[in-house]
């Protein structure tokens, strides 16, 4: 299928999310859409998928202009979408999920599960997916679940597949496997649109690269372009991709975690007896695929988990069993992994968000009254110091871009005295320019002697910031290794292999 998007414009109020974007995708081609979060990639694809109506512009498929009033139309026209967050039902089998919305039915509406199963098996065999049609989705690893999404699209005879940030949830190995799948799909003549902001992946599989910034196409690039070239096209200025930091000046052991266990309400063990320590002035980076206990580990340190055993001592003071407020008041800074949920009140202004964890005592509160003057002064200086780009301090946090939202969180946490910084996914969904800034702030905190516990699923980030790397797998520590450990080794460790097996 040959897809031509011509002058697609989509406005939301005063914002132009997609500003006359034109794009051609040929069959048998992997076309990368590269751009920062909020650049308009997803908006463009949602127009293509019939979720939004373009204000102007045409969608042309094989020379014919089409209008989609919903995803159903787009699917019927041969467009398949592999979403970043899977649209699968956990307690259904693979075959049941694949046929959902398109159920093969026999006499009197009888569900023909065998036909669906056969279809899965056939597609799976054709592309070497190795997926069991009768497996329950919830039992499958994330990488396989993603293949189910691909099968779903292919089972509806998709000729053009859109992958929206598909590697965000994958291990490095799974990412490699996905790249292989994309090449196979391409070889069988499918057209592929690959949306991402990860430069390495783009250069690996793309046939053509279109860079989008602020809703506009800023140019095309060849897959041979360097990371630095692509990054500066994305951001619109030269970007420092490597975090410069000096050797750590190590202090005493500040945070000591001993035999920590975290269990949830259903009895599921998320953190399974882990022990480690972080010294003042170092960054201990926790690497691992999402969902291997990192969230529960950071929440346990902050007192946000209820069923915790073992010990977490900060400068000798036990934190387990204390309230969140007490822990924050013992000078623990926390950048939560999901800023929209745990980090910000989107309907609050920037200023109001900056005092979120200081609503009990000075400097913004006296005798139960908010000192609005002090808060506003603080917000003004902080906005400048942390480069928060917004009209003014009364802008609602929810109206900021991801990067600026995160800078509000970072500013709030780093602008007070800290004895420990817990940073979970500090740059997830953040643009390249802001990543650079946030990384510098974290390194600055470390250099000022603050112990930093960094959790990241991005290997690039782990390697860039870590003084030591701790790999978690299924709630246990696989190993704690130096930062110059090869990426392949780290990748294998993230699947649970011990380093001895690898190094040998």
């Amino acid at each position, binding site marked *: 299928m040959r897809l031509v998007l011509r002058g697609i414009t989509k406005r939301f109020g005063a914002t132009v999310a997609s500003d006359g974007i034109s794009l051609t995708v040929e069959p048998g081609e992997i076309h990368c859409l590269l751009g920062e979060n909020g650049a308009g990639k997803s908006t463009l694809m949602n127009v293509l998928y019939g979720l939004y109506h373009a204000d102007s512009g045409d969608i042309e498929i094989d020379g014919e202009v089409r209008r989609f009033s919903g995803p159903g139309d787009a699917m019927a026209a041969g467009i398949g979408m592999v979403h970043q967050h899977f649209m699968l039902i956990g307690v259904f089998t693979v075959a049941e999920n694949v046929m959902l919305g398109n159920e093969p039915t026999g006499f009197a509406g009888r569900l023909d599960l065998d036909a669906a199963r056969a279809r899965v098996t056939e597609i799976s065999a054709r592309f070497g997916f190795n997926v069991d049609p009768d497996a329950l989705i919830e039992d499958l690893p994330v990488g396989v679940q993603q293949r189910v999404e691909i099968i779903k699209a292919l089972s509806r005879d998709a000729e053009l597949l859109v992958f929206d940030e598909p590697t965000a949830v994958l291990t490095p190995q799974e990412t490699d496997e996905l790249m292989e799948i994309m090449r196979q799909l391409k070889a069988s003549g499918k057209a592929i649109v690959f949306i991402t902001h990860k430069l390495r992946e783009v250069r690996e599989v793309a046939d053509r690269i279109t860079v989008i910034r602020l809703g506009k196409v800023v140019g095309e690039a060849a897959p041979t372009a360097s990371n630095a070239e692509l990054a500066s096209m994305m951001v619109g200025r030269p970007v420092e991709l490597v975090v410069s930091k000096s050797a750590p000046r190590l202090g005493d052991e500040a945070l000591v975690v001993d035999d920590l266990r975290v269990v949830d309400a259903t009895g599921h063990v998320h953190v399974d007896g882990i022990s480690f320590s972080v010294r003042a002035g170092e960054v201990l980076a926790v690497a691992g695929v999402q969902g291997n206990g990192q969230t529960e580990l950071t929440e346990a340190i902050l007192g946000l988990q209820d069923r915790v055993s073992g010990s977490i001592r900060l400068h000798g003071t036990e934190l387990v069993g204390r309230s969140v407020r007490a*822990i924050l008041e013992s000078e623990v800074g926390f950048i939560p992994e999901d800023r929209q949920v745990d980090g910000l009140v989107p309907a609050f202004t920037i200023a109001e968000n900056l005092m979120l964890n200081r609503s009990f005592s000075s400097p913004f509160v006296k005798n*139960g009254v908010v000192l609005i003057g002090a808060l506003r002064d603080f917000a003004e200086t902080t906005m400048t110091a942390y480069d928060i780009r917004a009209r003014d301090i009364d802008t609602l946090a929810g109206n900021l871009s991801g990067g600026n939202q995160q800078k509000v969180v970072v500013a709030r946490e780093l602008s007070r005295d800290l004895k420990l910084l817990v940073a979970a996914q500090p740059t997830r969904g953040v643009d390249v320019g802001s990543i650079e800034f946030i990384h510098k702030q974290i390194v600055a905190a470390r250099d000022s002697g603050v112990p930093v516990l960094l959790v990241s699923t991005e290997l690039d980030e782990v390697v860039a910031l870590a003084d030591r790397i701790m790999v978690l797998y299924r709630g246990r520590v696989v190993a704690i290794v130096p930062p110059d450990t090869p990426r392949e080794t780290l990748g294998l460790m993230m699947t649970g292999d011990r380093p001895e097996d690898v190094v040998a």
Partner: protein
Amino acid sequence: MSDMTANEVVEAPAPEPPQPGRTHSVLYRIAAGNALSGVLAVVLAFLVGSVMIAATDPAVRETAGYFFARPSDFFGALGMAVGGAYEAMFRGAVFNARADTLAGQVRPLTETLKYAAPLILAGLGVGVGFRAGLFNIGGRGQMLLAGAAAGWVGFAFDLPAIVHIPLAILAGIAVGALWGALAGVLKARTGAHEVIVTIMLNYVAYYLLLYALSRKFLLQAPGSSNPQSAPMAQSAILPKILGDQYNLHLGLLLALVAVAAVWWLLNRSTLGYRIRAVGLNPHAARAAGVSVGRTYTQVMAIAGGLVGLAGINQVLGTVTSGITADLDAGIGFDAITVALLGRSRPVGILLAGLLFGAFKAGGFTMQTSQDISVDLVLVVQSLIVLFLAAPPLVRAIFRLPRKEAM
């Protein structure tokens, strides 16, 4: 949601993040609506009300029978019915040009203010709960028990007015706050949904009060077999603020003070800041060290105290002949409507309370002078909320631009 986040959230066909539960997002939607949609909802409700007035008017129906023969008759009757109804409402609620004296002419306005006071007080109580993300349906129970407590102090003691009135009010507030806090504690400690708990507590309060009102050793008036207490002592009755010729009493001033106090609480105090944070994003509030459960309890105590003031207003001011089990007069539920229309903002609730007070005052005149059932007013009130809860409907009717990015 903003256009920026739209880009991130819209992979799914249903862009609403499901996080804090259904009532929560409905409340948020209503609270986030702009003042325009409130005004339009009122206008729309009046229009629908007009249709109903017309449809039930005998003259309109009769002239409709020969509409094509003489349409002017039909439109004349229509104008008479609708115009007459709303004119009567205005006459009963704001200004009566037919009265002989100026005092008589402005009397309707004072009646409106009298009816508005408890609606504003109870509306503030419900509104404060909304701001913390809590749906307080327990207004009735909170009014009943607070009114009973204030009333008991009001008839059982013999004190100078300067002591008696404040004491009765404080007793009422305390009991209302405790009754409200009970629901808050249950939610905080056990996770029981506040809607269920407050509804059930309404029944508990009602039957408790009924029991007490039919037992001589508790609240029942001596020598009476009715479930009613003795009348208030003269020293406990809220003074009439415009002299004895009007029914308007101190309750209105209490309501105005409460509006200012709640505004200050929400916008200037740290407690109010935490209440808003919990209401808008309990996850972030918790991660920032705020005890969500404790905040729920505090909010429900404040809400109970404010709603309780409405009950106190009734017992000590409006109907001083003694405590009864229906002293709430439906205000506990009307307060929900008032808080929704006022978008849970103190000033909004003040205006909404005045409007609903006017409905009450005007509704009676409409019934007596135009023979239009007072129930019609209730229908209009209900329609206002219905239109508020369905902004897309109002936008479609008035052809306002669609908000796709939301």
